[in-house]
Every structure is written in C-alpha cells, then in structure tokens.
C-alpha cells in the first residue's frame, strides 16, 4: 500500500496540478509532494521492507537505497524549483490551467512518479516502461525555456535516449528468450529476482546478448561513453534544479537496471563477461569525460561531464565487484552533484552566464555560495573529508585486491585529468575579484536561503566521509549483496 502511494501520489498530484489555476498553489504543490514523498520513504525505510518473490513492484535493499537518494534529491531541489519558477516568471497567459507552467509542474511530479516506479519495479518490462516514462516526463522539463538551445537539447535527449531504451527493450526480449530454452524455467515471470534465482538454467548465449543490449541501452540513459552524447547538452540547458535531478536521480535509475541484470549474469556464472564489459565502459567513460573536462568553457557542461565520469566509476565498481564502494559512491555522487547543480543555478542567477571565463570572485560576491561551490568540487574530486573519498578509495581497494592494475591506472589517471581540468576552472571562478560589479552585486548577507539545500547535501556527504551511520551502512551492505548477485 505504502509503495503504491509512493508512486501514485505524484501522478495524482501531477494530474491535479494541470487543473490548478493559481501559480502559487501549484508551486507549493511541488514542495509538498516532494516532502510527502520523502516522509513516505523514511516511513517505509523505518517499517522495514520485505522483498517478496514474484512481485512486479517491490522494495528490496537496493531499491530502498536508490529511493532514498531520489527522494532526498527531490525534496532538496524542490525549493530551488519553486525559486526558479518564481525567478523566471512567464507571461500571465502561460501561468493558468494547462499552461506551460502547469505542464512543467505536472511533468516534474510525473518525473518523480516515474522515477519512483522505475526504482520500485522488479519486473524487467515494468522497469523498461518506467525508464522510458522518465525520459518522456523529463523532456518537457528540459525544454521549459523554449529557447533554441533548450529545444535542441530536448530533441537530442529525447531521440538518443529513446533509441537507447529501444535497444534495451530488445535486450529485455533477449532476456525473455533465454528463459524459453529450459523447461524448468519456461514461463518464468520476468522479474529480476526470479531470473537471478534460476540464472543457472538460462541460455548463456541469449543472456550475453541480452546483457550487451541492456548495457548499451540503459547505458545510454545512464550516460556511459560513447552513448553519453545527450547528457552534456541536456544537463547544461535544463533549469538547474532539473539538472540536479537528472544527474542525481535519473542516471542512477538506469544504472539500477544494469546492476540488476549484471547480478543475473553473475549468478549464471558468466559474470566475468559482464564485469569485463562494465569495467571497459566505465574506464572509457572516465577517460573520455576527463578529456572533455580539460578545456570546458561552460560550468554546467563541466558538471555534466563530471557525471559521466562518476557513472564510469559506478560501472567500474560494478564490474570489479566493488558493489559496496560503488553503491556508497552512487549515494555520495548524487548528493554532491545535486548540491553542485543547485549552486550552479544560484551562480547562473547571479552572473547571468554559464561561461566559466565570465564568472570570477564568487567567494566575494556571495561567500556561502562560493565556499559551497569549492566544497562541492572538493567532494566531487574525492578529496577527504568528504564521503566520495571513502567510496572511491574502497573501489580502488577492491581493484587492488583483484590485481586489476590497468584498470586502477586508468581510474587514477582519469581522476587526475578531471582534477586538473576542474580546478583550472573552479579556482578562477571562486576566487579573484568579482568580474563585473555592474552585473553582479555582492550579497548583503553571507548566506541566502538558496544556499541551504546545497549546504544540507554537502553536510551529508561530509558526514558520510567521517562517519557512516550504521543504518545506511547496513542498507548499503544489503544492497551490495543483491547487486553482487549473492
């Protein structure tokens, strides 16, 4: 029941929002639903979750973790969404019922609903459906500005992701085919859990084909190179709160699909194959993202490429069997990246440009934003005392234990390249004299309301770097057992 509420409530609210004429009420709805969702999530977490066999919709530790991430991100970016809508006030005719803003609100809530559904779905088909639905729900969010650039980004996002997800559908079919060979598994419900339990009797050739297709398919959505091409465009053109959600919540969902499929292959005894592919894609993503970070001129694109890099880390972690580190990293990355995109929105609001060259002296314009911007980048680069350091190190530790030196070398050199490229951009942005006193007026107060959600997210990452609370540690442990196919 609780689970149904979790994903149906946003849908209902979304539909309702179409019919609400007052922008104020509609905007408040986003915040209310997000926090309602967060509350439900926490209740579900607290009451415990029994993964049930054969169910299409269910909650195991893995989905609990991702649900938690998503819910926290939605809640913390809901303020920024409202602030964004308030700051980019549309003409009156676009604010009423069924107007552009109403559609945006509706799409936002649908996005929450579909993301939740994707996380909760244990059935391959439902999962696919939900993932495609997230694409569709988020497309209007990206195109909200209706500028030529945002439309272009939306088009690329929509087309490339749809193609990718269509490939994943083929993968689903192949997965279904692999069931049909052995009478023991014939007619098996296509849930990840059932498949994993009977993995040994599945047809390995079709299983391999299925994994290949699913990896490429969901990998497109997740942003693994070379299928990542939509990601920088969409992230840079979407409103910043939406970018935060795309990067922090959406990419993880796609990763969830790959992770669950990988678990099936590991159980089937062909984990070496799937792990190798994952590691290869991960390394490629990390290195490629590193190169693109190196001479980046747009700070939102910079963050987008950083997301690609971190998706690479997740893939490597999954491929190396470092599920614990990988999942911890997914958590840390989402929180950090959410904070960074929200801050990017604040910066964009203060400087009216996304160009890295045009922004300088942030720390003097707005000390809190500047400090958080620096802290966020330290976190995203895996510098202690932030949680990313711990998670990256534990991934590396597993690489070292497995003797995968080449992968480790690629990992470290990619991190190094990203670091060099990022700080070449971040230092002039955060420090120095403010660029144009006419454009950006120093804030009177050191900390603004807009800085609070990123501050909260950064504090969480900081906490995870110093002391990992035992409920979360336990959750991740359970989740990594599922992801590792145990």
């Amino acid at each position: 029941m609780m689970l149904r509420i979790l994903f149906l409530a946003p849908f209902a609210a979304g539909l309702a929002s179409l019919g609400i004429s007052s922008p104020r009420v509609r905007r408040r709805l986003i915040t209310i639903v997000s926090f309602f969702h967060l509350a439900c999530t926490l209740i579900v977490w607290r009451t415990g979750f029994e993964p049930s066999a054969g169910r299409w919709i269910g909650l195991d530790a893995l989905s609990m973790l991702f649900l938690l991430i998503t819910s926290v991100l939605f809640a913390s970016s809901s303020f920024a969404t409202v602030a964004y809508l308030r700051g980019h006030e549309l003409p009156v005719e676009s604010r009423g019922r069924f107007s552009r803003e109403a559609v945006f609100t509706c799409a936002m809530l649908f996005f929450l609903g579909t993301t939740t559904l994707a996380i909760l779905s244990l059935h391959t088909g439902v999962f696919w459906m939900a993932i495609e639905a997230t694409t569709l729900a988020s497309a209007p969010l990206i195109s909200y500005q209706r500028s030529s650039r945002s439309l272009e980004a939306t088009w690329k996002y929509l087309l490339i992701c749809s193609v990718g997800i269509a490939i994943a559908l083929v993968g689903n079919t192949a997965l279904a085919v692999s069931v049909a060979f052995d009478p023991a598994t014939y007619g098996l419900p296509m849930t990840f859990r059932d498949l994993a339990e009977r993995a040994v009797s599945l047809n390995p050739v079709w299983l391999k084909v299925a994994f290949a297709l699913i990896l490429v398919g969901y990998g497109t959505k997740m942003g693994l190179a070379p299928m990542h091409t939509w990601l920088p465009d969409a992230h840079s053109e979407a409103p910043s709160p939406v970018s935060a959600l795309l990067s922090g919540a959406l990419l993880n969902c796609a990763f969830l699909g790959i992770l669950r499929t990988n678990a099936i292959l590991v159980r089937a005894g062909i984990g070496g194959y799937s792990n190798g592919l994952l590691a290869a894609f991960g390394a490629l993503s990390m290195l490629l993202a590193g190169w693109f970070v190196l001479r980046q001129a747009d700070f939102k694109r910079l963050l987008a490429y950083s997301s690609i890099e971190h998706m690479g880390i997740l893939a490597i972690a999954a491929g190396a069997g470092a599920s614990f580190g990988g999942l911890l990293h997914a958590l840390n990355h989402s929180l950090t990246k959410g904070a960074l995109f929200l801050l990017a929105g604040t910066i964009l609001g203060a400087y009216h440009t996304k160009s890295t060259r045009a922004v300088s002296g942030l720390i003097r314009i707005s000390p809190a934003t500047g400090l958080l911007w620096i802290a966020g980048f330290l976190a995203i680069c895996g510098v202690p005392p932030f949680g990313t350091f711990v998670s990256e190190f534990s991934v590396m530790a597993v690489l070292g234990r497995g003797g995968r030196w080449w992968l480790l070398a690629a990992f470290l050199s990619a991190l190094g390249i990203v670091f060099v490229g990022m700080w070449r951009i971040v230092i002039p942005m955060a420090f120095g004299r403010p660029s144009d006193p006419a454009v950006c007026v120093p804030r009177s107060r050191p900390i603004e309301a807009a800085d609070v959600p990123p501050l909260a997210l950064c504090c969480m990452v900081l906490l995870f770097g110093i002391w990992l609370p035992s409920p979360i540690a336990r959750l991740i442990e359970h989740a990594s057992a599922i992801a590792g196919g145990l």
Partner: protein
Amino acid sequence: MIDQSIIALLLLVNLRMFATSRVDSLVRCVAAQAFLLVCLAVVTHEGSLSWEAWTFLSVTGLVKCAALPALMTRALRSAGIRREVEPLVGYRVSLFIGLAATGFSVWAAEKLPMPAGAADPLVVAVALISMITGIFLIVARRKAISQAIGYLAMENGIYVLAPALAVHGPLIVETGVLLDVFVGVFIMGVIILHIRQEFRHIDIDRLSELKD
C-alpha cells in the same frame, strides 16, 4: 502461406523506406509497416487469440497505423515542411545498405539459437530489418521528422520481435510499452513543432549549436 507473403511485403516496404525521397511517403511506409507487422503477429500466433489479445492488437494497430502517422502528417503540414527527405547518404547507397542489412538479418536469424515454439526465422529476420531500417533513418536522414519516423520504425521491429521469438509479456506491460511509444512520438511531434517555430527549419544537421 499468408505469413510468407506478409514477410515479402514487409521486406518491400522496408526497402522502400531506404530508398524513398519523400517524407510523406515515409510516413505512409511506416504506417504500412505497422499494419503488416500487426497482421504478422496475428498470423504467426499459435492457437486462438483471447479477446484481450484481440483488443490489444487492434489498439496497437490503431495507434501505429493511424494515430501516429496522422499526428506526423499533421506536424508535417502545420510546420510547412518541404517534402524532400534530404539524405546524408544518397538513395542508391541507402538501397544497397538496405540490401546488406537484409542479408545480415537473415543470416543472424538463422544463426541464433531459437527457443522451442519460436516462429519462422524469417519473421525474426524481418523484425531485425525493421529495426535496422529505423536506426538507419535516424543516422542518415537530415530532418527531425524522418528521425521520429525512424524511431517509430525501430519500435515496430522490436514490437514484432517478441512474438517472433515466442516471448509473451504480460498484457499490462505490453500496454505500457505501447503507451510509452505513443507518448514518445507525440512529444517528439510537439518538440518538432516548437523547433519549427524557433528555428524556421527542422534540419537536425543544423541543430548543432550545442557542442564542445
């Protein structure tokens, strides 16, 4: 007998999609493709169809043969798009690629281990060809609308692949998939309209302001 002739017709339609130079003909082709694929699904189905299946198939047929093509034609008209396809790859080369894709699909369908109860490998082949046609249209045609059509063609191929391999998903999932495709193409159409308003053209080629 009937299924073989449908397969032959599908082949022809797919090859026409490779070679045609008109957008409206592409739309018609994709509608025909969808119709034929639905027919193929009916014909290759073993045993009698339940009423749910009938309903579902007819809804699919309606959506894919009528609703979506109509939507596209409307977008085509209201946006005032010229009817040339404006290829990146020439028609003759495209046709050859189509032939090669056909050969490859047949080879692959014969090669893959088929589960018990799977349909004729040619059905699998034709599904594969449809998918390849779709992707080819996305990669090699310049207009946004032809890319949307490519996406639809690809979905059509995938749609028939499952029954061809004797995979039958639960009805609600199939419906969800169909809904997704419908909404997807619908949103694509909407975006194309917006792009048209914003850019005065819908050449994807020129949609390259965002780059590094």
